[in-house]
């Protein structure tokens, strides 16, 4: 029960940074003119998300590629507005993991494939797909 409050706090902090993160989309110079401390924003965003991810890892172990796939898929679906992107990416990551875990347990039942293998396989294919798509919508 330690994990939930930590993650919620991190989420709330990140969500409050959402507009500043949106402002970064116009470039660092313009963001600075808009009164945003760009270096501090990047550093604190990085530290908080790293902390949140580390907390989860400490309880669950390493699952690869969710951090890569979740936000990119979300961005393709709902765009780059961080007010919606941050919660959506979190939920999408959870959804990806649940689907993968279900698949892992049922594909070759009764043998249980470790979730990590599914994630690396799916994640690798997904990553290739992103590259092949080139600079299309949602990808940057």
């Amino acid at each position, binding site marked *: 029960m330690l994990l939930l409050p930590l993650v919620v706090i991190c989420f709330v902090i990140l969500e409050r940074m959402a507009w500043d993160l949106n402002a970064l*989309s*116009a470039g660092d*110079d313009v963001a600075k003119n808009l009164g945003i401390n760009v270096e501090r924003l990047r550093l604190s965003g990085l530290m908080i998300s790293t902390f949140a991810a580390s907390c989860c890892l400490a309880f669950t172990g390493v699952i690869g590629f969710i951090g890569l796939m979740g936000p990119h898929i979300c961005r393709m679906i709902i765009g780059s507005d961080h007010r919606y992107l941050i919660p959506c990416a979190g939920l999408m990551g959870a959804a990806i993991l649940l689907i993968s875990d279900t698949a892992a347990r049922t594909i070759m039942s009764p043998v249980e494939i470790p979730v990590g293998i599914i994630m690396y396989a799916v994640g690798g294919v997904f990553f290739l797909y992103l590259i092949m798509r080139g600079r299309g919508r949602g990808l940057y």
Partner: protein
Amino acid sequence: MDSVSFSVRNGEIVALVGPNGSGKSTIIKTIASVHRQSAGSIFVNRVNIDTMDPVDLARMIGYVPQHFTYTLYSTVFETVLLGWRQHIKWAVSDEELSRVQQSLDALEMGRMAGMFMDQLSGGERQKVFIARALAQDPRIFVFDEPTSALDIRYQIEVMETMRNITRERGAGMIIAVHDLNLAYRYADSVVVLNHGKVVGYGKPQDILTPSCINKVYGVESFTVENEFGKFIVPFRANPS
């Protein structure tokens, strides 16, 4: 930079001219809070900007960069909306939306509001960034070569629009320009820079003379005067 000093009044347009590397962009960026000055002070309404809260400062000074770097995938509308960022708490109200639309309409980009930034041409992107500064409704506009990517029609339209807006809102405007005729026609005062120093400051007709241009740029020019006004025509680079 070395002892640069000038002022802008309400409704006034000041043009910064000078060769590449003379410090125009540096001055613009320092005023816009992109760089911090190492010496000297900048005052807005007699308040030193170093003492101002960044949020208040953001509402006072609007900046349009020379080169556009944009990272995330956003639409024209979202980019212009950012200009109003320091006034937005969370959700965006209808008035804020119409403010954005008005800024786009002022630059005749109203129909492009839903397009994505990388679908636009360079000139259209430049206009979007100008619209963003308009939406910011600052007391001072600080533009770094705002018309460099625009065709000749847009250049004139944008400068006319900016002059009207500056006068209407009682805002001040500082623009760095390469085109001396734009400075001549639209600026109330001109600051000529060379190697980080001010080598001329005053009214365009007094300062932008062929001898000054020759001294600063090493370029021969002549002036033409007709019923439309006075124009400077550079035509030959002198061997350095």
